[in-house]
């Protein structure tokens, strides 16, 4: 075999190997580098979440927000106090809502009523709504679960 052909074959193998090594290194480094950079939401959202912005809810109103895998209910009482509860009715798991005409929480499915402390006051719900803690962090209304 001619020397030039052998050199050609050597460079091909070197190229293949070099390419393979670089390819492997990059394909390892890329996921690792992406992994170590924290995702958009830095922590699992099961313990606390931003439920809204300050000023978003006028007094005597409420909104549903996403809290992990369950809906949550954020209300502003008629006197303007912010409170948050688990949004699932304790009767048959429908989603509750805030009724400004009642001034308290209500479930559409079987006419269950809860007062603004989450206590079941009328209708079929057997237990109060689980209450969450509301804190203000700058502009955000942060709702957190107690473990």
């Amino acid at each position, binding site marked *: 075999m001619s020397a030039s052909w052998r050199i050609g074959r050597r460079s091909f193998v070197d190229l293949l190997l070099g390419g393979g090594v670089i390819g492997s290194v990059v394909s390892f480094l890329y996921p690792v580098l*992406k992994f170590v950079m924290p*995702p958009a939401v830095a922590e*699992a959202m099961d313990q606390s979440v931003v439920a809204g912005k300050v000023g978003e809810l006028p007094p005597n109103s409420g909104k549903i927000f996403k809290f992990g895998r369950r809906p949550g209910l954020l209300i502003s009482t008629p006197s303007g106090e912010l409170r948050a509860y688990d949004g699932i009715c304790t009767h048959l798991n429908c989603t509750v809502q805030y009724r400004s005409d009642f001034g308290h929480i209500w479930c559409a499915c079987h006419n269950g009523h809860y007062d603004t402390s989450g206590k079941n006051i009328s209708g079929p719900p057997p237990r109060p709504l689980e209450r969450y803690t509301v804190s203000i962090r700058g502009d955000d209304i942060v709702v957190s679960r107690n473990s």
Partner: protein
Amino acid sequence: MLSSLGERVFHWLDERLDLQPIQRFVREKSVPSHRYSWCYFFGGATLFFFMIQVATGVLLLLYYKPTAEAAFESVRFIMTEVSFGWLIRSLHSWSANLMVLAAFLHMATVFFMRAYRKPRELTWYTGATLLLLAMGFGFSGYLLPWNELAFFATRVGTDMAGKVPVVGRFLLEFLRGGEDVTGATLTRFFGFHVAVLPMMATALILFHLLAIQRQGMSVPLSQKEASTTNAGMPFFPNYFLRELMGWAIALAILAALASLFPWELGEEADAFAPAPAGIKPEWYFVFMFQTLKLLPATVAGVEGELVGLLAFGLAGLAWFFVPVLDIRSSREEPSRWLTLMGVAALLFIAIMTLLGYVMP
């Protein structure tokens, strides 16, 4: 270009650390070449998988939360929110199993080649301990995702530990951090898994590797003639490239398993839920688990499980101290009986493991 850069770096370090002896050693290091040289591969494979475990483990540590309340959710977070979290986690889980398998195969080949005979007894003792540590890594790591399977498998496994005579009670409470498997167990296992066991393993691995460098590779008795007729294979670059190729294949197997059987998240552990049917410990404990299950309630008046544990204890001791017990190989003499016993033990383990999965 790269090589001249490498040369410059080497020269810079050499001026300060005198790397000549090391360079000489590496140049002269050779690996015996004979029919069973391929067995030498398994030790390196174990080391390779261990390095992957350390790397992926450290990465997981950046996000994992070791408490009963947060553990499962943090693993879910890794798998769903962190970029390539699912990949790092799947690699870690699979490489763990492959590491234990490679360690076991390494031990088997060392056993059958009698590589533990004088002067390499210490290498065997550190290696055997490392195999036990690997199983400890597996057992402690398995609980960390705090899912249903892991929780109950840990309960079953620590129950077994509790049955050891005399020290069983202490052992159980030491492992569990209490009477039952709870968050305290998780914290404890986490400590074992990321601090205690890695410290011990690192020290032992360093010794194990240094001893090998010092003593060179052992040649099986049957091949002693054949290996003296050749100078062996130079470690660098010949054996080294082969080792790398082996590691590439090992990596391919790892990636294939992780893609064919991605590791699941499962359901969060609930201590008050009934145990799902068919709970087993991890596969490398199944043979012991199944043996204990198959033993009758009493054997010659003694509780069956106790007999089983004693038998395993004695077998374990014999295995650990085989360099002492195998007098023939210390005299460089072959021993058919020991080979047969080894094969029998392997068959027993294989059959019991199979039964553990096949039987209800």
